[in-house]
């Protein structure tokens, strides 16, 4: 009876998990936030530095890794270098197109892997994994020899093909992770309530896996904008942003 009467916050808290000593609690209160802050700092520093350099007062002739004072002039001259602007436009276009294609195809792969048991399912999963795990140098070299073999002229098209190729795997894996724990009975319930397969997909499946699709698409976009090695193999004379930057340094 007295338990009910004296039930205050500390008592209730004490019952929740394993007993904590006062020392452990203090550690928790201080060490965890400090540790978290250090990790976040570590992750953000490179990004912070590059943003900082955007305001760095240096001579335009050479890349200087030293602070020369604050300026906004680089922002005024952002589009002065036509090669850079063209390369940047190429990159954006390639990223947009390859992301759309890879997101659609990758999502379909994920849906198929989730929904059906079929011959070659294990092989499909293996290929996805191999695609992610294989060194880019291998993917780039083999793609190039393939394009040469079939006489495909290198250019924007081959870059898009290459980016779609490696992005499908990333999208499929991301969407698939979202679907883990997804109850198949939910789709059946939609059909049971009168939704045809298309309505079921649009009203139920898509909203549920959309966060996965979005994450996959963002990842694909970032990987595409960023890619240097594979792109370098298959780009022919076309310059993308990373290739231009590499050439400029």
């Amino acid at each position, binding site marked *: 009876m007295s338990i009910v009467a004296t039930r205050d916050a500390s008592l209730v808290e004490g019952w929740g998990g394993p007993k904590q000593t006062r020392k452990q609690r203090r550690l928790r209160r201080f060490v965890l936030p400090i540790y978290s802050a250090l990790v976040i700092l570590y992750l953000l520093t490179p990004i912070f530095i590059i943003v900082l350099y955007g305001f760095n007062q240096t001579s335009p002739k050479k890349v200087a890794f030293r602070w020369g004072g604050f300026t906004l002039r680089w922002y005024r001259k952002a589009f002065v270098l036509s090669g850079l602007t063209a390369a940047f436009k190429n990159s954006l276009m390639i990223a947009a197109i390859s992301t759309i294609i890879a997101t659609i195809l990758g999502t379909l792969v994920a849906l198929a892997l989730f929904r059906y048991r079929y011959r070659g399912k294990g092989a499909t999963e293996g290929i996805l994994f191999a695609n992610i795990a294989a060194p880019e140098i291998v993917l780039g070299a083999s793609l190039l020899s393939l394009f040469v073999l079939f006489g495909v002229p290198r250019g924007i098209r081959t870059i898009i093909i290459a980016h779609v190729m490696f992005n499908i795997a990333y999208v499929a894996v991301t969407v698939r992770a979202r679907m883990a724990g997804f*109850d198949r*009975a*939910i789709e*059946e*319930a*939609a*059909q*049971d*309530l*009168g*939704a*045809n397969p298309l*309505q079921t997909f649009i*009203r*139920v499946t898509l*909203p*549920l896996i959309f966060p996965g699709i979005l994450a996959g698409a963002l990842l694909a976009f970032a990987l595409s904008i960023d890619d240097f090695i594979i792109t370098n193999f298959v780009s022919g004379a076309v310059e993308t942003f990373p290739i231009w930057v590499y050439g400029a340094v």
Partner: protein
Amino acid sequence: MGETDVRLDQVTKRFGDVLAVDDLTLQIDQGEFFSLLGPSGCGKTTTLRMIGGFEDPTAGVIHLGGKDVTNLPPYRRNVNTVFQSYALFPHLDVFENVAFGLRRHHVDRQEIKRRVGESLTLVDMPGLERRKPGQLSGGQQQRVALARALVNEPKLLLLDEPLGALDLKLRKQMQLELKRIQKDVGITFLYVTHDQEEAMTMSNRLAVMRHGKIEQIATPEEVYEHPATEFVAGFLGASNLLEGEVKSRHAGVADVVVEGGSTVTVPDASLNGSESRVKIGVRPEKIRLEEDEGEPPSGWNSVRGVLQIATFVGVSHQYTVDGPAGTTLTVYAQNLGSGANVAPGDRVRLLWRPEHTFVVRPSEPLAEWEEEQ
């Protein structure tokens, strides 16, 4: 009532080399509360899924309301399902979950509002329309799942162990509510469970299944009082079975000599076959236990034994008796204040009325995986 709502004709379903449902024929009447009862893996869910349209029968025909629906997809059948996992749409709130079916059928806005409200009231869940399924308790999710199905006013509602995930107390409460709701709306319920008590208390009729086949279809009383097979007798409650030989048949009764020598009388009607070796049974609570002194009273069936264990469980006494030919018999005696004056080791006799005797078809023994009930 009386009109046939569901008809399965020789329906079979194979998954590879697993025979999940084996040549099943079944009729359910309009407005009935019908249960499929059976041990794990006997094909209950598969049967339900074929009626719902989620599995195609390997052979056979399914009729709903007189129409052959065997090849129709789920969204073209006037049937709704309450899934065991509830399968609520996690991204939609309670209102939209319940309205989902109405929206697919282009019911107008006002009508949707009214009907969703009504069905949420029916399942006693008003006021939570804007909650997401993740913010509801198991019992509340269960009610929403029910409302979501009922709001469409289907001809038939399929329920696959809908109370399986609830704790015992809530389960009992929901059993009563389901029964009330079924009466209120008058929709035919096809209810799957492996809980025999649940099936007995709720159903108008039930089918006991095993290995993809139906062992018996009848009212709960009939199934309990006159189980057709040894399996049914054992699956629904405790029973005492004795092997015997039919000696003579006359005037509506038959005399059967059971192993150990006593002759018992059974209703002739329960001997459907003409075979002479039979298994007879009697429920433990139908038996009177007394000291084996003098002649047994006439008009009663009687077998002899030795009392092994006597247990007192408050409302009743339970006796375990070594019966004839190595059998073990169980007796439940209601605690009327005057227990039988017997002790373990005493010679006793077991008496019961001939009309309480049933005759069963022998079944193969239960496999281990079937025993969990």
